[in-house]
């Protein structure tokens, strides 16, 4: 039974994406269940998280797995145990999958070199957050009428791309699904060599809409980066990079990985508007992570058989 780590989406092809999304739908519709019965899923969170941790735990339990949860408070992690030692411990305790959140890029790939269990990257530093990008793709394809409806759509990724692990997973996954991406951010919030992605860089939400963007995917701007050297003020940021009600015309959709800073990335009156997929993204968390854990542990082959 082959296991499969989810470290990044940089080498995941279109058919693999479609397969995971199809399986997520089967989970959501209750057509599959109990895929992880008798398995142990370990959540190792070296960085605090609410929605990702909760959504993984629910997903694992709904699939019938036992769940062990280590967080940075009150565990060996808090006592300064190294990443490798924690992973080896979980491996020897019989983990069938390790879900890892860590503040440094590359932590998931380092962990995967020290365990035979599949590692699911639940966000590492500014590196990758593959499960977020997959649930985004799921929520968007559902809103548009199916996976094949994604091809040719125009999505603007807006905001702090520099520090965003979400963007680094969304860019390759959305591109593989046939989506045309543009980046909208001040240069101080873009990686120096963002050009390596080969994507157009635009200067405001308005410009993105003028160029035909149908989906405005906004990224979280951490509070500590709001004032000071990277952007001059929240007001100026919101004026050019915030999504406001005036931008919602002709079916424009709005996305955000959460948690939203209302009035910064998205206007307070837009977050829960019909145009907003933010609640749908949260709802996609459990079925998509169920599908990912099912594929990761090799249980998907049983489902297919």
């Amino acid at each position: 039974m082959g296991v499969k780590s989810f470290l990044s989406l940089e080498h995941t092809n279109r058919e693999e994406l479609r397969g995971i999304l199809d399986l997520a739908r089967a989970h959501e519709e209750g057509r599959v269940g109990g895929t992880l019965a008798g398995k142990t899923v370990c959540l190792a969170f070296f960085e605090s998280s609410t929605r990702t941790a909760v959504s993984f735990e629910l997903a694992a339990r709904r699939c019938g797995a036992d769940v062990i949860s280590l967080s940075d408070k009150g565990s060996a992690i808090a006592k300064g145990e190294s990443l490798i030692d924690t992973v080896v411990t979980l491996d020897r305790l019989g983990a069938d999958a390790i879900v890892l959140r860590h503040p440094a890029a590359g932590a998931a790939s380092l962990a995967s070199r020290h365990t035979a269990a599949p590692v699911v990257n639940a966000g590492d530093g500014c590196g990758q957050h593959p499960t977020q990008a997959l649930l985004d793709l799921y929520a968007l394809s559902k809103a548009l009428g199916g996976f094949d409806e994604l091809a040719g759509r125009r999505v603007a990724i807006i905001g702090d791309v520099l520090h965003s692990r979400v963007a680094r997973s969304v860019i390759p996954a959305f591109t593989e699904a046939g989506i045309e991406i543009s980046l909208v951010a001040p240069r101080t919030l873009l990686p120096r060599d963002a050009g390596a992605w080969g994507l157009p860089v635009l200067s405001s939400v308005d410009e993105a809409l003028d160029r035909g963007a149908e989906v405005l995917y906004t990224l979280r701007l951490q509070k500590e980066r709001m004032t000071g050297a990277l952007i001059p003020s929240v007001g100026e940021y919101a004026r050019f990079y915030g999504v406001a009600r005036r931008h919602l015309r002709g079916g424009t959709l709005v996305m955000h990985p959460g948690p939203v800073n209302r009035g910064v990335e998205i206007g307070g009156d837009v977050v829960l508007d019909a145009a907003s997929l933010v609640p749908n993204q949260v709802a996609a968390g459990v079925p998509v992570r169920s599908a990912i854990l099912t594929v990761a542990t090799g249980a998907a082959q049983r489902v297919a058989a």
Partner: protein
Amino acid sequence: MIPAPTDLVIRHAHVLDPGTGLDGVTDVRLTGGRIAEVGGNLRGARELDADGLHLFPGFVDVHAHWRTPGREDEETIETGSASAAAGGFTGVVMMPNTDPVVDSPVVVSGLARRIERESRVRARISAALHVGLKGERLTEMRLLKEAGAFCVSDDGLGTASAGILRNGMTYARSAGLPLILHCEDHTLATGVVHEGVAASLAGLPGSPAGAEDVATATALILAAETGATTHITHVSTALSAALVAFFRDRASVTADTTPHHLTLTDDLVSTLEGLYRVNPPLRPDADRAGVGEALRAGVLDFVATDHAPHASEEKELPLEEAAPGFLGHETAFAALYSELVLTGKLTLHRLVEAMSCAPGRWVGEGGRLAVGETADLALVDLSERWTVDSGTMISRSSNSPYLGRTLTGRVVGTIVGGELVHDRTGAKLGTRG
């Protein structure tokens, strides 16, 4: 400890010293720790058959971290000097960023005594330019010199403010101490890898090349202004090399670059492995090529390894958390011979000049293969291919960026003061009855 010298004749080696013009197969007699005779058909009580091997002046490395005092679990004077000897180095300058920092006369004199007892090669001490390497108070440079310091350095800290650096350089000049400067502006060098394509795509915090260039320009301008004898270490960008060239005739300045900046590039950081973190960071190919061209042209005077051992628990970490630094001694010649000489980018003459003659001149000893000179030599098999393996490292640590790579050219014998301090010559050393 350097053993008492006895006579030794090295026979049939291809002797190469760009400094003296020697380039051909001949014999060399070592007597009393010095080179006594160079010529054909020399015989002696002890003979080393070096047929098929090259004999160079011993290499000199002005940048090494032997982690003593404080981190003897990573390297000691004994293991560091054995590692240097295994790489053909006969002279080394030890950097001051230890624990405690080498910033007081008592630490310098203590180190000097331990070097005498434990080092296989000629080790010199670089003391700190500022107390605690904090970039604030000047160290007691004249007392440090009396205690045995050879030079002063800010390595391990990087560039203090220009004003503080200027005072340090001015005082070092009056103390008669050369400076080795690590040029890095901390307001720019906020990342862990080079700020380039690999860092952008991987989401790793980057430090721009400008962090080095701004600090190099500052150091060079102040060298010109203060008249201090200034050595810029581990130049890793094409622009910094060009700045050194500009100041060549305007200041008393020399510069080195490292084997890793000459042979490796920042695409390695896309592996996300902590092993590949180093300061200054690995750069893009354009910088690697630019630095290589500067070394070829003599704009950069020589090579230094920045040998920086780290325990495995400091390297087997995500890149952002790993300690910066690579082992350097044991792979330096082989990496440069394989990647630069065999590819036609650098002549063997220039490589020997950059590893032996030029750094030897800088420290004032070694780097010359001529009658009357100190018998510090490296014996090298240019045809041996070998794979770099953590199990066979002589250093106490194993954080080499070349692990797993097969290199060509291997040091088989290192002679300090006429005695073999590293010996892989096997049966070739015979005693005539």
